[in-house]
């Protein structure tokens, strides 16, 4: 198992909590690391991920069996590709229910594919219950609570205990006011020339963006490490060490 064969699902039952931004960052991080990446936009409404990453992203649906097959059969394909799923709030329940029913995480593990669930933390009861349910249903996955600081300083850590082989949480630092306009207007890529050449971005804004991005990439590397650690523990257990 490695991140060449991993599935990272960005999820929350709540809208507008930063899922698509995180999915964009994850996808661009894989590109930055020269990994093959495929992204899946599972939103029934606005498809933000495709707007920003049209070449890497496919629109996915789970409303019918054909759509379910197109998505999940691809997710469990061992093709040395990191897969990022931007799971819209309106598809959350049906996705999680289906994944549980068809034993998605277990099948992925059988095929040496690591699954990480990045859950956007919010203080509401719906999200807390959804997180608890994920822990119960997908005990084999790496479940990472993501604290998006733009949603407030409270971390709700007591409501979102870390779970999974590597046990880690993630922080999404706040982007300085005034910089959102650069990253929220497609086409924009964190891995493309916009960032590397600072095209159309003032120098001070570019420096601040780079600093923010470095902090986030550091968090992603931590998750990579935890995935590897979980994998190592599994391998050692299975070989009786």
């Amino acid at each position, binding site marked *: 198992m490695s991140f060449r064969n991993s599935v990272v699902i960005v999820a929350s039952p709540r809208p507008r909590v930063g899922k698509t931004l995180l999915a964009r960052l994850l996808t661009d991080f894989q590109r930055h690391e020269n990994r093959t990446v495929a992204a899946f936009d599972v939103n029934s409404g606005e498809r933000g991920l495709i707007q920003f990453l049209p070449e890497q992203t496919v629109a996915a649906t789970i409303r019918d*069996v*054909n759509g*379910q*097959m197109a998505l*999940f*059969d691809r997710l*469990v394909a061992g093709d040395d590709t990191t897969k990022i799923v931007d799971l819209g709030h309106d598809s959350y329940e049906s996705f999680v229910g*289906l994944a549980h*029913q*068809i*034993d*998605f995480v*277990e*099948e992925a593990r059988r095929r040496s594919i690591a699954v990480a669930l990045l859950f956007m933390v919010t203080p509401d009861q719906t999200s807390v219950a959804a997180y608890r349910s994920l822990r119960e249903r997908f005990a084999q996955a790496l479940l990472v609570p993501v604290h998006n600081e733009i949603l407030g300083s409270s971390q709700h850590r007591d409501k979102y205990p870390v779970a999974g082989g590597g046990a880690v949480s993630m922080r999404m630092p706040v982007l300085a006011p005034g910089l959102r306009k650069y990253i929220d207007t497609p086409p924009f890529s964190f891995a493309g020339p916009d960032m590397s050449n600072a095209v159309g971005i003032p120098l001070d804004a570019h420096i601040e963006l780079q600093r923010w991005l470095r902090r986030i990439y550091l968090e992603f590397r931590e998750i990579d490490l935890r995935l590897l650690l979980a994998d190592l523990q599994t391998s050692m257990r299975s070989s009786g060490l």
Partner: protein
Amino acid sequence: MARPAVILVGADKGGVGKTTVARTLIDYFGAHQTPTRAFDTESPRGTLKRFHPELTEVVDVTSVSDQMKIFDTLGSADAKVTVIDVRAGLLSSTLQALTEIGFLESAKKGQITFAVFHILGPSIASLEEIAETARVVGDANYFLVKNFVNNTTFFEWDPATYNSYFKKIKGAEEITIPKLNEMAYEQVEVASVPFVSFVGNKGAKGEAANYSFVLRGYVRHWLGNVWGEYDKVKLVDLVSPKMESNVRQVAG
């Protein structure tokens, strides 16, 4: 020597899913390492044999020679359980024949374990079948199977009417076969393999196959629920009282 068990799967109507239920039974006993053989009475060509060719023999249950083939070998066959998929319209007459050859009497004396899986159809005629079957079935283990696998809507029956028929059979138990996603069901049909082989991504000869993971997941989930129904009525204990039950791992 262990007492042989015979399970009759039938209905007087066609298209109610008899063969599907028989297939799940064969898979279930297979998962419990219970040697099983099957007879498909859709002579000359049987659907059950298509899915379980090595375990199944096609017979004409109305012919004496084939009746001998089934019942005279109960004690000597390697298989502990015999599943008979009775062709549409032959359930009552088969039960009648079993009475005449003394089979039901042997079951009554405890020499043979006998169970009837009566698959219910969508019409009121099915309810009348229950009454008719009840007269002959005697002390057999009687299971009324509501089969939703193809989304049949017959459970709009008036519960009071249904219960009045249901209660006519002493000790009858109810089994519900849930619906299976149409595409998943169709793909298993196309593959012509047992449900467990489909779940395990195997072809007819045990070779690796490439079925959709999603469809396999649907089948796995559905089969688990069906087997849960069989566990609920303690089917393994019925045919083999000391057998250990650890069926889920095989389904997974």
